[in-house]
């Protein structure tokens, strides 16, 4: 759509109104914000429903069962239907069978995969030689930081003695890390805000410049 055509201006106007309405929440909660919030929830639910229908539902339920005759896809669908029984007072318990599959499979997949990516990979990455160079020494300090930070997460031992010292250094290291994370994020968020401001500015220019 041509953004300066009549319809383009109308749609962009709607977008501009929504932008201003959401920003108005910064001032205070107000009826306009509330209206947009509720409308948004309705619209997004409708969109999401149709999106799931055309993608996952079509690929995993409709096509395999009804078009390709892959009868074994009936089982996950049946379990999915069991979830609806949660709404019934009497038969609510049957939804637990579906939940059991859902949780059992998710956690079972998760266990070895997390050992691989969060433990093995990460520990592997920390094993390096500490050479007598600037980089080497910095790595040595970082390594010490990792050991101390991890020692902060010992739960079953009182943090006294050596563990007390290391966990203290650990929490200091964690705090420095958090501060850095906070400071680094400002840039990206401001960039997003500027995009909204520029969107409003351009729409304003087109509107005043006789776009309509």
């Amino acid at each position, binding site marked *: 759509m041509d953004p300066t055509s009549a319809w383009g201006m109308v749609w962009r106007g709607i977008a501009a109104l929504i932008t201003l309405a959401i920003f108005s929440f*910064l*001032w205070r909660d107000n009826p306009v914000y509330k209206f947009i919030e509720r409308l948004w929830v309705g619209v997004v639910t409708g969109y999401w429903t149709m999106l799931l229908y055309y993608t996952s539902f079509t690929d995993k339920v409709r096509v395999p069962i009804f078009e390709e005759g892959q009868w074994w896809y009936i089982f996950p669908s049946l379990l999915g239907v069991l979830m609806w029984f949660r709404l019934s007072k009497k038969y609510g318990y049957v939804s637990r069978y579906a939940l059991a599959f859902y949780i059992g499979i998710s956690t079972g997949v998760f266990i070895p995969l997390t050992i691989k990516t969060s433990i093995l990979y990460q520990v592997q990455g920390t094993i390096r030689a500490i050479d007598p*160079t*600037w*980089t080497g020494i*910095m790595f040595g300090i970082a390594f010490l930081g990792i050991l101390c930070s991890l020692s902060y997460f010992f739960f079953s031992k009182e943090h006294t003695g050596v563990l007390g010292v290391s966990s203290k250094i650990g929490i200091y290291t964690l705090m420095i890390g958090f501060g850095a994370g906070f400071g680094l994020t*400002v*840039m990206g968020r*401001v*960039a997003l*805000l*500027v995009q909204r*401001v*520029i969107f409003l*500015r351009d729409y304003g220019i087109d509107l005043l410049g006789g776009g309509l």
Partner: protein
Amino acid sequence: MAWYDRLLAVDRRWIYLILAVAVVIPAIWTMHIPVSLSSEVENVFERVSGIQDGKIMFLAIDYDPSTMAELSPMAEAILRQVFRQNGRVVLSSLSQFGPAMTDEIMTRIAGEMGKVSGEDYVFLGYKPYPAITILAMGTDFRVPFPTDYYGDRVDDHPMMAGVHNFDDVEFVLSLAGGNAADMWIVYGNAKYGVPLALGVTGVMATDYYPYLQSGQLFGLLPGIKGAAEYEQLNESPGDGLRGIPYQTTSHAVVLVFIVLTNIAFFAKRSAQRKHGMQAGLS
């Protein structure tokens, strides 16, 4: 209510308002704010400044449209500078979706500055397998690229006479949005000893500083800040520097907030201590 109490309990809407002003003003009116310079960017600038009067540098455009916002300002600034100095440049692309984008940038800038393919620049094009391509270019650019992106024989280009491999260019600068950067370090720098600098996205930057320390890279352009610094050194404001003013003002506002809130906090604490001491004495 003491001044510090009022400051500590200030309505947050004042904070929103001040930040909004700090962002909106530079976003609507163009203004120029200098960025602080870092040595890794200055090093790249100095080396590129040396590409004068017929000298040749190698520019590897190894990113694709997904990281264009951060890396294209660097490519543009560097190409303009080299052409202004009458330097020449050999380009390649190791990213599958990079060549069309490279061609667009190259043709546009060459058109603006009246530069000619084959005399002032040669765009070799794209080849898969980055490691092999870099290794092969180390022997002769013609091994992986007998013809350039436009299908012309490399040997037919006057500027390529006597230019065979990395020994014949001053240095390599790779603008990379992915692992091509590592390939250049391992195969280009470690195997052939090519002087190498990288331009990378802001997120990637921390991974490459150690190579700067170890001397494997002579320079690094980190993300949009690197692009802005470069444009400032080059005195040619572009998308990099345009993104800076509102970043500077908004960061400054947040920093001032932090200072103010701490001044008020300590003022209150010392007042309380004094008060506590007097209470204790009496």
